[in-house]
């Protein structure tokens, strides 16, 4: 059996259906099997990325019906980049949460199934080449995300999840509407085929479809003004799930948006809309983060702000800008998940999760505090860390496009970022010890995860060339739309 992209979907599903039976056999299997699946994800990623060096992309048909007739999975360097990133973060989250034998009094089996499907659904969004199949994967992600948000039996989790569910089902209704209109006009659901037939669609219908997709996927990508669900969901979900939301789920939403904008529609005229939306998202989110006193909500708003920057970069749309956008996504995934991991230890026994409670935490938890400080330095873009390079590339791309106002805005927003992150660091490292929180010693696996992430951030910061080739490959693949269409539509069956 050759390794092919469909393994990303088939094996976790097999594992998810088997786990209820396996855990009757032995309790521990419910925790171990998802880990094996994540490990296998990493193996497939490495093998497939190597295969991409000899061929431009891997397009796999499902059920033996070639591209427009059946569903297909497309593994381009761009989707490969995101999938590898998601598998890596997913694996780290699994390692981090491995010691969850029981979450409060809930058996952890359901947690691991939902976590695995959350990652699998996001990978499915990235891999699929069919617009309705994308919707199905979006629903897989959505349902597991709702359940995980309400996972703790406390009262606010259910409310955050209900809010998320309302907004999410509105989004999926809009996406379905867009799919209906698109189908009546083109008679196909394959994204490459849609891109070919898009010129048959009257212009005003194009606009309507675009707005429906933009709002629908924008909700998943935390775009203004529909991101009200995000801070609640981030702060109420179990600690590592915040990392999954920031590192994986949002990336899926951004991918769907970008795939629709870049492949199905032409970019002309759309870029300015993305830039404007990204700017508003960024400014409002960073201002909101400044006045938060809840640490997790602050991190969530900061995450929304970063997504705004990514949207701006995709909106500029030049080669360098897309390169910067992908670099920003990579850094955001690594750094934000590290911040969420360390924050959930800093706030372990807190009920209100406010920043005030952190005063003097560095004495009790030197390692975790150090990791948090490292992440904060990296995400605001200080030089020796990886966040610096992505911000630099972004500013260079904006300068190439001669958007001076944009550069000034982003720089001043960075100042806001520095203010609120340093306020937290100042509290953690403050001398007067008033914290009443009972510190929880980090377990070995979580220390391992944070060390790996911290080391990666420093290594990428010192040698950015390690990843730039990879990202260049990915951004070229996104820009080269005709290559995508040609490869998908002329794919022959493997027989």
């Amino acid at each position, binding site marked *: 059996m050759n390794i092919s992209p469909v393994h990303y979907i088939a094996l976790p599903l097999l594992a998810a259906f088997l786990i209820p039976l396996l855990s009757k056999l032995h309790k521990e299997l419910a925790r171990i099997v998802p880990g094996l699946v994540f490990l296998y994800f990493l193996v497939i990623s490495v093998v497939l990325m190597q295969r991409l060096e000899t061929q431009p992309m891997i397009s796999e048909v499902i059920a033996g019906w070639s591209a427009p007739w059946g569903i297909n999975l497309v593994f381009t360097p761009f989707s490969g980049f995101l999938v590898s990133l998601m598998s890596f973060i997913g694996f780290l989250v699994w390692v981090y949460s491995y010691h969850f034998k029981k979450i409060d009094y809930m058996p952890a089996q359901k947690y691991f199934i939902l976590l695995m499907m959350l990652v699998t659904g996001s990978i499915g969004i990235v891999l699929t080449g069919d617009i309705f199949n994308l919707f199905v994967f979006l629903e897989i992600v959505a349902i597991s995300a709702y359940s995980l948000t309400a996972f703790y039996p406390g009262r606010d989790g259910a409310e955050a999840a209900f809010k998320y569910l309302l907004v999410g*089902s509105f989004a999926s209704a809009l996406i379905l509407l867009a799919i209906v209109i698109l*189908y009546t006009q083109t008679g196909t659901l394959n994204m490459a085929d849609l891109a070919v037939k898009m010129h048959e669609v009257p212009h005003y219908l194009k606009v309507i479809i675009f707005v429906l997709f933009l709002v629908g996927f924008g909700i998943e990508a935390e775009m203004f003004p529909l991101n009200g669900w995000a801070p609640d969901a981030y702060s109420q979900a179990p600690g590592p799930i915040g990392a999954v939301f920031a590192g994986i789920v949002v990336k899926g939403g951004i991918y769907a948006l970008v795939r629709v904008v870049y492949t199905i529609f032409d970019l002309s005229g759309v870029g300015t809309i993305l830039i404007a939306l990204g700017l508003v998202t960024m400014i409002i989110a960073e201002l909101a983060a400044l006045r938060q006193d809840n640490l997790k909500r602050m991190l969530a708003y900061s995450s929304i702000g970063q997504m705004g920057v990514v949207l701006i970069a995709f909106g500029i749309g030049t080669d360098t800008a897309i390169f910067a956008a992908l670099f920003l996504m990579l850094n955001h995934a690594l750094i934000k998940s590290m911040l969420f991991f360390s924050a959930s230890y800093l706030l372990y026994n807190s009920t209100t999760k406010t920043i005030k409670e952190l005063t003097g935490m560095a004495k009790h938890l030197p390692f975790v505090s150090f990791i948090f400080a490292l992440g904060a330095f990296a995400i605001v873009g200080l030089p020796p860390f990886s966040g610096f390079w992505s911000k630099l590339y972004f500013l260079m791309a904006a300068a190439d496009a001669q958007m001076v106002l944009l550069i000034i805005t982003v720089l001043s927003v960075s100042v806001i970022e520095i203010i609120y992150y340093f306020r937290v660091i100042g509290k953690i490292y403050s001398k007067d010890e008033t914290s009443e929180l009972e510190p929880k010693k980090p377990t070995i696996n979580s220390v391992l995860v944070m060390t790996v992430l911290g080391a990666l951030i420093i290594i990428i910061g010192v040698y950015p060339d390690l990843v730039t080739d990879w990202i260049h490959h990915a951004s070229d693949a996104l820009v080269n739309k005709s290559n995508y269409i040609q490869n998908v539509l002329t794919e022959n069956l493997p027989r």
Partner: protein
Amino acid sequence: MDFDFQNIVTISVYGSAIALILIGIYAVLIKKHLIKIVIGMSLVDAGLHLLFVAIGYINNGTAPIFSPGYEDAATNMVDPVPQALVLTAIVIGFAVTAVALSLVIRLYKHHGTVRIDEIKSLKW
């Protein structure tokens, strides 16, 4: 067939589907009672399903099934793809509704009320 008559059918089927969607969204946005909101969500779903089936319909068409004796009827069949998509959408809609209702039960357990203006412990 008379053209005007055709128009009336077009308007009434699409109109009712769009009306269902709008009524549902109205209920979701305006109503304060959680169960009413979930009802609104399922009305939106219902309207979407009607739209899907309606776009596949062909006048005087037959169902896309080759029943014995009618094996050559393919020229007159309605579009099967939207129907297949609706099957998927209906089941997904039920799953979402079930999760929403379980969240309503959880909220009632903790707050003793199902009205959204009395729950708000998080910011909206």
